[in-house]
Structure formats: C-alpha cells, structure tokens
C-alpha cells in the first residue's frame, strides 16, 4: 500500500515538475494599430509568389556530349518522399545512359556510414545524399576525393567546400520560404494575425526558416503576436495534432498555425475541428499530395512547396557538368511559389509523382544536358 502511494506521488510529482518546466509563451491578441504599409508589402509578396515560376536558375547548356556509363549513388532516407525522389532521379539517370544506385538507410548514423562505405566501393562518379551531417562521412572523404566522386549534399547544415562539392537546400536558401509564410499569414489576416510557429528542433536544417518567419512577422506586422512551439521528433506520426490543439486551447487568441513542414498537418484539421478550433488557419511549407488535398477542401490556407524536382535535378546537373568538364553552375533554387485554393489545381501536373515548382522543370534540365525528354 505504501509503495503504491509512493507511485501515485511520483507520477503526480513528475506532472507538477514537468508542468512547472513549461515556459509561459504566447502573446496576447493585440489591439495595436495595423501597419498598413507592412500589410501591403506582404500582399505584394504573396501576389508575386502566387504566379508559378516558369524558368530555372540554371540556363547554361552543357554544350558537349555527356559521356554515358557513369554511376551515381543516391543515399536514401527512411521517409516515403526519399523513395519518390529516388524514382525521379532514376528516370533522369536512365535518360543520360547512367546507372543510379539507391542506397537505403534507416536514418541512423551507422546505416548512413555503411552507405558511404558503399559509395567508396562503387567508385561512383557522383553521390547525392539528404540531410546527412558531414561528421557521419568525414572519414570517407579522403577516399571519395581520391576516387573523384562528386559529392552533392542536399538539405544539410554543412556549407559547400572541404570535400562537399555542391550543397543545395542549405538553411540560407530556405529563408525565403519563411518570409513567404509570414507574408501569407499577414496578408490573409489583414495585419491582425496571432500566429504560432510549430517547429521540430531535430530538423536543424530548418532553423533559419523559423528565424526568417519570426523576423518577417516582426518586420511586416509589428503588432502581430507571434510565438513558437517545439514538438519532439517522437511526436511525428500521431502526437502533433494534440500538442497543437493543447497549445491553441492554452492560447485562445492564436488564429494561425504555421508549420515547419507540411507533414505536421497530418490529422491536424480533424483534431482542430473536433476541438471546436476550426477557425484556426494552417500555413505550411513543403507540399505534397495530402497538403494539396487539404488546400482543395479548405482545411489548409496555404503552402509554400519545396522545389524538390529542381533541387535534386540541380544536384544531378552539377554531376553532369563535373563529368563533362564544364564549370558547375552556382547553387541556386528557383523563385518560390505559394499554393492556395486559387491555384492548387496547378499542382496536379507532376513529374514522376512530385509536383515541380517550375513548370516542365524536368524537360528543361534534360534540354540543358542534351538528353531526350
């Protein structure tokens, strides 16, 4: 009986301590005057980004035949999206007469290291990998350089150089997305938004996205209260909607939820509806079929789709230029695009299962390489 009582006290104490650890957070709804100039700038940004871009940043053709028979290794990740990206890359390496080896990992550093060891054994001409910190493969870099493997780092925090030949989707390149999400919130609310940014700290490559969102909110709408809520990576899958609902109930003035990645919205509209919070608008970034569906049904306000097709084909383009002896184009992404209910129908046009930001991005790259599209 005494031990049982002890357990009860232990559980209660942990609840009290954990609750006490919580920060206050959240701003109160402001009745401060609206910065009309800021709202106008936000509206202009949204209007400009609502038009889908039609041009790539890379425009210089290779100008000579691409040698066939090259090998590219792609280090995949456990997320479903990585399989789709692998499929898209395979289509394009086939067009070049090249071989794509997909090295699957479970996301653990151990499995990632095995993948890099495999790249060394394959003596690949190029390697493309997603969100892997250089610390994981540092010890393989000398051999990779000796083999002449062109290293393409995608969506990591590591800068280009020191063994990384081409880095794209860097934290700095993601800044604009944060600004557009802020503009979308401010424009839609007419400068009267109270927003919470839902962040996943485990995805450290997204950190500057959050910084830019918060800075843009402050710049374009100083009267708009803005806060952040961190969610643990362990909550991805089934816990996020309840964490967000809990936050919104504790902060009833908040009327915009801004998601670091759109996949956090999975199940969120239903949870908001069940909690009587369906007046809260959702804005995210990344895109994907579920997001387009939520936007079509009015359950999500807007999304800034990540240019996945353009990102990975730019990485492949850098390998093509390397093996043909052409100077690599600078790492650049196309202009970003905001998808809302008005233009969501355009997302139905896909490239190998992914919605490109630039219309016909795949054909444009193939044209640069002189490959049949």
């Amino acid at each position, binding site marked *: 009986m005494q031990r049982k009582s002890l357990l009860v006290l232990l559980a209660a104490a942990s609840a009290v301590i954990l609750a006490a650890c919580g920060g206050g957070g959240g701003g109160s709804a402001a009745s401060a005057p609206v910065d009309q100039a800021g709202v106008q700038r936000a509206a202009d940004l949204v209007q400009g980004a609502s038009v889908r871009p039609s041009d790539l940043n890379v425009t210089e053709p290779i100008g000579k035949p691409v040698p066939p028979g090259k090998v590219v290794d792609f280090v995949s990740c456990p997320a479903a999206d990585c399989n789709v990206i692998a499929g898209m890359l395979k289509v394009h390496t086939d067009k070049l007469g090249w071989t794509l080896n997909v090295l699957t990992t479970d996301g653990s550093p151990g499995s990632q290291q095995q993948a890099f060891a495999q790249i060394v054994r394959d003596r690949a001409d190029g390697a493309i990998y997603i969100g892997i910190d250089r610390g994981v493969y540092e010890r393989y870099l000398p051999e990779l350089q000796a083999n002449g493997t062109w290293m393409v780092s995608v969506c990591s925090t590591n800068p280009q150089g020191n063994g990384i030949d081409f880095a794209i989707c860097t934290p700095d390149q993601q800044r604009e997305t944060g600004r557009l999400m802020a503009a979308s919130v401010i424009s839609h609310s007419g400068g009267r938004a109270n927003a919470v940014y839902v962040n996943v700290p485990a995805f450290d490559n997204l950190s500057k996205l959050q910084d830019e969102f918060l800075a843009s909110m402050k710049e374009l709408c100083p009267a708009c209260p803005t806060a952040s809520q961190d969610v643990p990576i362990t909550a991805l899958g089934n816990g996020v909607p309840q964490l967000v609902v809990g936050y919104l109930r504790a902060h009833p003035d908040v009327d915009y939820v801004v998601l670091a990645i759109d996949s956090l919205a999975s199940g969120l509209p239903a949870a908001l509806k069940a909690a009587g919070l369906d007046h809260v608008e959702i804005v995210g970034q990344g895109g994907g079929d*579920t997001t387009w*569906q939520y936007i079509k049904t009015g359950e999500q306000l807007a999304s800034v789709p990540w240019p996945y097709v353009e990102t990975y084909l730019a990485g492949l383009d850098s390998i093509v230029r390397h093996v043909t002896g052409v100077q690599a184009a600078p790492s650049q992404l196309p202009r970003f695009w905001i998808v809302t209910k008005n233009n969501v129908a355009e997302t139905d046009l896909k490239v190998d299962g992914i919605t490109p930001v630039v219309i016909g991005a795949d054909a444009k790259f193939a044209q640069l390489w002189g490959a049949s599209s």
Partner: protein
Amino acid sequence: MTNTLERPAASRPPATERVWTRWATAVSPRSIGAVYILVVIVVVFSIALPSTYPTLATVKQVANGYSITALAALALVVPLATRTFDLSFAYVMTLSGVTAAHFVVHGMSAFAAMLLGMLVALVIGVVNGLVVVVMRIDSFIGTLATGSLVQAFIIFFTNAQIISGVELAGGFSQLAQVQIVGLTGPAVYAVVVALVLWFVLEHTVVGRRIYAVGFNPDAARLATIAVDRIRFGGLLVSAGVAGFAGLCLASSISAGSPTAGTAYLLPAFAAVFVGATQLKRGRFNAWGTLIAVVMLGAGTVGLSLSAAPNYAADMFTGVVLIGALAATGLQRRRIRRG
C-alpha cells in the same frame, strides 16, 4: 457431518460485510490506482491551469485525441489475455487504412472500401494464427516477422507514397470525423469495443477460457479447453480491432499513410499493460485499458496546455509506465503469496 455442513456457513461473513468488503476492494488503490493517479493529475492541473484545464473542452480533447490509441490498445487485450503477443497490430492498422484509402481514391464506395480494409486485416490475423499457433513460433518473434512482411507489402503496394485525394474528404472521412454528442466517432467506437470485450471476457464461457489459457495453458488443456483455437481466435480479434482502428486513423487524416500505424505500437502496449494493473489485478481487461488511456491522455493534455518542454510527454509516459508495471509485479507477488 453436521460440522462439515455448518463450517462454511459459520465462516461466511454477514451480507453487509461482504458488500462492504467487495466495495472496499473495488475502490482500493490496488484495484484502481490509475484512477487515483488521474484524480491527482486533474487536481494538480486544475490548480495550475484553472482557466483551461478543468473544462469540458479538456474532456473532449482527451476523449477525441486518444481514441485511436484506445482502439489500438483494446486490440491487444484478448491476445495478451491468452499470453500471446501481437506486435503486428500496428502494421495491420496501416494496411487496412491504405487499402481502404486506395480503393476510395479509385472510385469505390467508402463502405465497400472499408469492408475490404477489414478483410485484409483479418487475413493477416489468419496468417498470424498460422505462424504462432500452427507453426508454434514464439508469438513475440512470429508477429514481429509478420508485421515486417506486412510493412514490406505496404511499401510495395503504395510505392511508399501517401495515398490521398479529395475523394477521401467525403464519406470516408465521416467514419472518424463524425461528431456524436461532442465526441468524434472513434471515441464512441472505443467505448463500444470495450463494452463488447468486457462482456465477452467477464460474462461468457469463452471469456473464462481465454483467461484460463493465459494463466496456465497446460492446466487449461487438461481441462479440455481448446487452447490453440482460443489463441488463434485472440489473434483474429486483435487483427479485426486493429484493422478497424486503422480505418479510423486513415479517415481521421483523410489519407492512407504507409507508416501511419507504427506510431501507435508503444503507446498501445503502454496503455494495455497499465490497464492490466487496474480493476482485475494483473489481468488484461478492457475497462482498465480505457482508464489507462484516459490517465495518460489527461496527463499529456495537461502538459501541452501548460506549454511544458517537448520532452515532457515522453517522460510522463515513461514514469507512469514504470510505476504501473512495478505495481503489477507487486500485485502478482502478493497474489502468489496468497
């Protein structure tokens, strides 16, 4: 002879005393410790968050937000009661969801697609039965293996892509998003499933046999109970309830995600093991499982309302799980000591 006849009557306490003893046992912290923890949680958070926690909205959030976890945990009650693990249930949830979503997106009616989802879930239940009961492979390993095969099939079937489409926002989404007296569908379904499980386990011969198999399969076999048939049936029930939970999950997110169910693996086991410490002292049971889900949900919702740090919910669950399992061990030792 007279003595032997009189002895039971003489040792039997008066009726009022028996009622009192039964009542005292029922409300003892040893029987419903989670309810006491729940009361402490409610009191603590009501004091800390007087404007947001002690409200009807919190009740709804706990009921609605943790209803699919409750269904997933209820799926485990029967197999665990027969001392059989089913680690494949989370993958079965995913499979039924993606199957139904696939067919809805391809034009089938929501009802027919859901029936197909249930059918494939039951097929996996049969496969589990064959592996565990017929092939005599340890249930822990066997269902882990079938779960892995189910996940492989899901990846093959979906090409690892989320199945979505505006068709899923129609009738299919109503399964989970329908509101019944302020509660969403899965919250009501969880209570109905618990009611059925409670009735079968506590008030039928089959229920007694299920527990008999779980407590001592050899003794149950000697008592002419069809042990294998009951364990096979337990795995079928698990697959059926998990399949239904998967349909609710897919309906809730209006999509068929190829990894949706795996997130429920640990929370469901946590709830069902905590539930075994409630009401029936060491027996896996339906109402105890629901109490455990509510307790874990009440704590987690309180933490999210208080903007606790992002590790808080996991820490809370871990503390409660260790506490509850320690209590179960203590109870079992006491029962063995008489």
